[in-house]
């Protein structure tokens, strides 16, 4: 076997970066959802025509029967089933606490993950009812950030 290099100054490495960026279209179901949210401030879910399961976020297919779905309007309100308080940012530097929650939406078998606002962490409990606070219509862009946060009812 050829003799191995052991001096770290002789061992080489090469630096580089991935210089791509991506544009993700929302898809057929996603587009319907975000356009309704942007134009009318309303939420939609998708109901399977065969088994009746209501999907949120909406999809054009039922994942278990593979049959078509139809869009149904929902209130967008729900209840908190899990939450966490983040105190460090992505680079592990301290930041103002942000509260993330998993919210089960009324009238669906699905959930949304979003921020909680206008509430103190010690006042949150599992089962707490919440409703969405949207951006003003002129500021909405057709993205999940059109919902600013969820606040207690």
């Amino acid at each position: 076997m050829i003799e191995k290099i052991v001096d770290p100054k002789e061992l080489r490495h090469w630096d580089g970066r991935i210089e791509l960026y991506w544009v993700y279209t929302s898809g057929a179901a996603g587009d319907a959802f975000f356009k309704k949210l942007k134009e009318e401030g309303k939420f939609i879910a998708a109901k399977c025509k065969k088994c009746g399961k209501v999907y949120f976020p909406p999809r054009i297919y039922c994942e278990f029967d593979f049959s078509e779905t139809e869009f149904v309007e929902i209130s967008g309100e729900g209840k908190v089933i899990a939450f966490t308080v983040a105190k460090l940012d992505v680079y592990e530097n301290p930041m103002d606490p942000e509260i993330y929650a998993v919210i089960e939406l009324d009238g669906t078998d699905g959930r949304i993950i979003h921020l909680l606002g206008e509430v103190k962490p010690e006042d949150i409990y599992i089962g707490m009812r919440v409703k969405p606070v949207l951006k003003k219509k002129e500021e909405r862009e057709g993205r999940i950030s059109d919902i600013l946060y969820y606040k207690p009812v």
Partner: protein
Amino acid sequence: MSVGKKDITCPTSALGTPLKDEDIKKGRVTYVEDHPDIRYSWTAGQAISRFLNELKRGRIIGVKCNECGRIMVPPRLYCELCYKPINEWVYLKDTGTVQTFSISYIDPDARPLPEPIIVAVIAIDGASPNMGIMHILGEVKPEDVYIGMKVKAVWKPENEREGAITDIKYWKPIEG
């Protein structure tokens, strides 16, 4: 569906909604744009570390497999055909023969280049037949390049070399 019969034409339909670039730019469909910051540090490994260090000294080095006798470049720790460790380094010349070439008018992002680049696979003298590396040709007009042309490496001056494949600026034809 008429399974088992031959009288249907497939595919039965062409589903899907085509979009044009301006549909996205004008916001006719919703989308999210993401510009990630992904950085890497790749280790060269034992064999290529030595290769790069030798390039800094102005030399090309290869390896020899004692089992099958091949002299290989770029160097590697094991022969991939015999699957045995390599035992010998071999210094190679900095001349070679063009095995194949192309004249490129586009950059890595498919945009047009101001001047075309001539890229070639060059079999290095001193290595086994067909042992090539990919590099750029220079000081030659595109129409004068041919397969079998003999070329020599043009190095950067010693103080500018950093131990990279670009320490060789390009390969130029040998006169005569």
